[in-house]
């Protein structure tokens, strides 16, 4: 099967797709359709819930298997993983009408050098743990992040940072919205799409060090992350990196911005 599926073609496959009963190429095609079709996504979620009920067995979890799982956790503690966890790319865009036009936009030359500075492993751990927790807290609230992002944009307490293209300070490529509790969003992302195998990575300057705040994906639109609260980060930068992310930026920033107190 080649090419994109029509809605009707994808719909016919949803039952089999929800049961993992399609060929690999069909699964890829359906997944591509789901990315842009909330109705089909919703149906797949519901059918998977039905399948889960069919699979339900009252058997207890085998205790001896827990010992294996527990032992497996120790081999690679997530806290010292050199790669920041991937942040979920989010489909929804926030309405331009909600955008605050008055945000101060300023280029920040200093961060170009700073992002290339070697950063301590501890700083990476802190940043990693921090945004992982922040994102999960948002999940626990049963709130879709695009909705949460829209809400954050409307929050008068939010700090806002315009990220502008390096070398073109008049061109805003994304905005950051940061709430007092450290919950933060990149919104209105308009960076050029990177080729496969590459990702944008967000950095914050914290106590003189560039701390990774997470991976943004190949073409970020709306992404959740988190920062320390109260905000010690005054400046941000975005670099383009290999897909798994890096501990130390390998290229100069493509976008940058700083917090401006009004």
């Amino acid at each position, binding site marked *: 099967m080649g090419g994109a599926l029509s809605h009707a073609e994808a*719909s*016919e*496959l*949803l*039952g*089999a797709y*929800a*049961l*993992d*009963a*399609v*060929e690999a190429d069909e699964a890829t095609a359906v997944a591509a359709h789901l990315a842009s079709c909330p109705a089909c*996504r919703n149906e797949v*979620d*519901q*059918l*998977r*819930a*039905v*399948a*889960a*009920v*069919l*699979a*339900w*067995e*009252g*058997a*207890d*979890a*085998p205790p001896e*298997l*827990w010992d*294996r*799982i*527990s032992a*497996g*956790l120790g081999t*690679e*503690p*997530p*806290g010292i993983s050199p790669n920041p*966890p*991937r*942040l*979920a790319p989010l489909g929804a865009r926030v309405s331009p009408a909600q955008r605050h036009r008055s945000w101060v936009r300023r280029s920040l030359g200093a961060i170009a050098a700073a992002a290339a500075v070697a950063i301590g492993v501890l700083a990476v751990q802190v940043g990693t*743990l921090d945004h*992982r*927790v922040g*994102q*999960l*807290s948002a*999940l*626990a609230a*049963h*709130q*879709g992040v695009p909705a949460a992002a829209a809400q954050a944009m409307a929050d008068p307490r939010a700090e806002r940072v315009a990220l502008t293209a390096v070398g073109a300070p008049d061109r805003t490529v994304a905005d950051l919205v940061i709430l007092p509790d450290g919950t933060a969003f990149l919104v209105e992302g308009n960076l050029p799409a990177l080729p496969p195998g590459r990702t944008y990575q967000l950095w914050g300057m914290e106590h003189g060090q560039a701390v990774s705040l997470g991976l943004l994906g190949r073409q970020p639109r709306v992404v959740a992350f988190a920062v320390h609260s109260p905000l010690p980060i005054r400046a941000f930068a975005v670099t383009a990196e290999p897909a798994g992310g890096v501990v130390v930026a390998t290229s100069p920033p493509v976008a940058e911005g700083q917090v401006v107190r009004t």
Partner: protein
Amino acid sequence: MTDPRTASDPALVVAIGRFSEPALAEAYRRHGGAVHALASRLLGPGTEADDVTQEVFIDLWRRPERYDPARGSLRTFLLTMAHARAVDQLRSETARRQREERTARETATAGYDIEHQAWDLAVAEQVRVAVAALPEEERRAIELAYFGGHTYREVAAILGQPEGTVKSRIRAGMRRLRAKLERHGVEPAWVEH
């Protein structure tokens, strides 16, 4: 989180995000049996099913952010992961031969029986009734696809029916089940703790 045993599933996942092993242990206690049973159903009891179960929970530990409560319960998420992994395993070339042997064995003894899969649950009766009420050919197609790990094309070959027909029957049967369960007040939320 105070006590993992009284925490909601989403709260457990948040705690797992903070590297709380007791929270992961509790998630395993709640859902490990179902995950292991589904993996065993597809792969047969033994090492392969144990491996899939282990991978599912270690994956939850490493990437808890992949669970989105807005899209369903934690149990559905874990079972979806387990099913996908088990099916990948089944469809790998090395496993195919062993599976063919096992399929031959199973065919010789007893057929698939989804009615006995959904049991020991507060809503077991509704599920049993809903499954039993399915048209026979829809029930067979769903059983072969979900518990047999077959693609709809393989199911079509097994049943000697057109692929398009099988594809439609799987979806129609699943939708029928969903509607029936919802009419009986059984919602995906029941698998929430």
